[in-house]
């Protein structure tokens, strides 16, 4: 979690070119992240373990829709995918109020009669989250402040820098509520002198701690754009080749 964690990825970040140009966290943007891990054999030159494509489309009535395409590249069994559309409120936590999601397991042909795909939908209403997962229906009582893993990719880009009060909330990790989360400004770091070839880049970290999640740090640049998410063994790194801000996006890749 401290910036020393990023040092483990110095070989990857040596040629990292931070995104440039204007960035409006409340606007229309598309980010592509690569997922790496710090497990044995992955360091010092980790292979890509997954990708995340996340697009924010502002809604006229406030809030935004997040289009999510997450692919986890399995070591031995192809790719697992999540395609989701999340409607978020226009508040500090980008509170998700409605979503649909489809998960696929990369099970090659096998003789079992079962589905490879799971569909999920959820709607928040009157303090209750109604979730439908295939034939399973769940109702969760919602706390006053909650958000989800994916919505935080959006919300952290608009957080205040030093001096901001900690934000307390419940995290919805997909469908699992994880209470007692705290998101707080952590530190500002210049990466430039940390290792030879480090990018000229100042990043600001926001730390998240709470039940059911190891401490994780969201690193944003001066414009608020989320560049790195360090989460336990996993690190999401913004693909700098991807455009930071888009006027229009047609379709989802």
């Amino acid at each position, binding site marked *: 979690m401290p910036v*020393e964690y990023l040092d483990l990825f110095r070989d990857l970040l040596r040629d990292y070119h931070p995104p440039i140009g204007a960035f409006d966290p409340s606007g229309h943007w598309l980010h592509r992240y690569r997922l790496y891990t710090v497990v044995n054999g992955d360091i010092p030159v980790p292979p890509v373990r997954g990708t995340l494509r996340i697009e924010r489309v502002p809604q006229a009535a406030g809030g935004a829709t997040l289009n999510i395409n997450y692919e986890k590249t399995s070591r031995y069994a192809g790719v697992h995918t999540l395609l989701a559309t999340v409607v978020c409120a226009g508040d500090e936590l980008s509170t998700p109020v409605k979503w649909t999601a489809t998960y696929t397991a990369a099970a090659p042909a096998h003789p079992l009669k079962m589905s490879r795909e799971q569909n999920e939908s959820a709607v928040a209403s009157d303090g209750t989250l109604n979730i439908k997962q295939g034939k399973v229906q769940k109702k969760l009582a919602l706390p006053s402040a909650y958000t989800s893993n994916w919505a935080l990719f959006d919300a952290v880009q608009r957080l205040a820098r030093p001096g901001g009060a900690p934000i307390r909330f419940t995290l919805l990790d997909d469908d699992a509520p994880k209470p007692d989360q705290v998101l707080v400004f952590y530190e500002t770091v210049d990466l430039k002198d940390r290792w030879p070839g480090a990018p000229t880049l100042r990043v600001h970290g926001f730390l998240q701690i709470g039940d059911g999640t190891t401490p994780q740090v969201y690193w944003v640049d001066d414009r608020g754009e989320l560049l790195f998410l360090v989460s336990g063994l996993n690190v999401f790194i913004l693909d700098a080749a991807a455009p930071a801000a888009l006027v229009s996006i047609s379709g989802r890749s």
Partner: protein
Amino acid sequence: MSKQHGPTIVRDRIHAPTRRDVLRTGAAAALSAFTPRRSRAGQPVRPNFLFIICDQLHFEALSSYGNSFVRTPNLDRLVRRGTSFLQSHSPNPICCPARSCLMTGRMSSETSVTINGLEQVKEFGLPPTAVRFNRGEIIPSIPDMGQWFQQQGYETVYCGKWHLPTNWAPNELPGFTVLPVGGGEGAIVDPTIARATGAYLQTRSGPDPFLFVSSLMQPHDICYFAIYDEALTPKDLPSSELEKLLPPLPPNHLSRPRAPQILDRAIYTRFSELQWRFYLYNYYRQVEMLDATVGRILDALESSPHADNTLVIFTSDHGEGAARHLHVQKWYPYDEALKVPLIVFCPRRFESDYRDHHHLVSGVDIISTMCDYAGVPAPPHARGFSLRPLLEGKNVDWRDFVAAEVQVVGRVIRTAQYKYVRYKDDPVEQFFDMQADPWETQNLYADSRFASVINDHRKLLEDWESRLIVF
């Protein structure tokens, strides 16, 4: 021997209170014995089995067991609805060997899976001959759980971590149809395993009963918090918010009872006290990740057509050092690594909230239990006992001791009161009075007052070993 040090005889049968005794006193919740459903032809319908294995779960890392530093509502749901065996032991507190035992009901020296990999020989200073005893995969003449139940007409499916020897279940395993979810870290792969398990439970069809093994990775991710300690367990806490949340260190944190050489070397010394507590904090967060995954699986089962005819068995391959005796990870004969949670229940048909504190049980008992409920014989030479009588509250004579192996040359005999540890060719043995000293701080092996009872344990070990079939 003075009376205050307990009995000198260890061969007595254990006369622990049975569940029936407890029920009689009204101390347990209602229990209904497992009555097999019957088919239209009047034949008993054989139960399905959902075997959930997790990796490196400490035996006390559940909130329902009194741990206030972790929140595990879904594991607690298992506890509330099932029977918890609180004296459950890993047959070998190391991943590969333990899994070979769970899968076969045989000891690891018999399956020929005694270490995780050859690097362990150097890392832990094992004798070079150790290599000879490790084939790395279960010897072909011993059927694994999948092969055995497939022969009995079960649909047998495996999903998740395998580690015999490949870490993740390859696309083809003898005896199992594999749901390939690939591999990776628990935080990434466990939700996928849960979803694949759920999809199977919700949508499978077919006339045969099933055995589904859902093999989860968490909370094993904690291993990397010791390996990459500077990045993951830094010297300074990342936030003052954390300080008040850190668990305290266990009372035997710094305890180093005299130990055989291999064991004596296996301590972790890179952490400050704060780092140890932060390590524990992170461990419990990973237990909570496991908890969420187990919840997804239980939700899927309970809303499936199989809910009332599926026996759920939950356990871990081994425990976790959890800062006891300066330990991280596993590899030790101490309780932190050796003891594991074991919970059994069957939704809507076989439920209770019972904690069995007395009966010594082992991971090798699981396959025998499943066979008993399936109405089929246990595999030849299976070392375990069926837990069925204990689950159903029957008053049975139970085993006097449970045995375990560790690090190829280490052996453990655990009786009701004592634990005896011996590493081959090492003159230092260990002997703990587990009732007087549950934290295993005082090695009594050189205490002349225990000479007789220690000798009894030596004989138990020798007799037990002589009955193993080691190739």
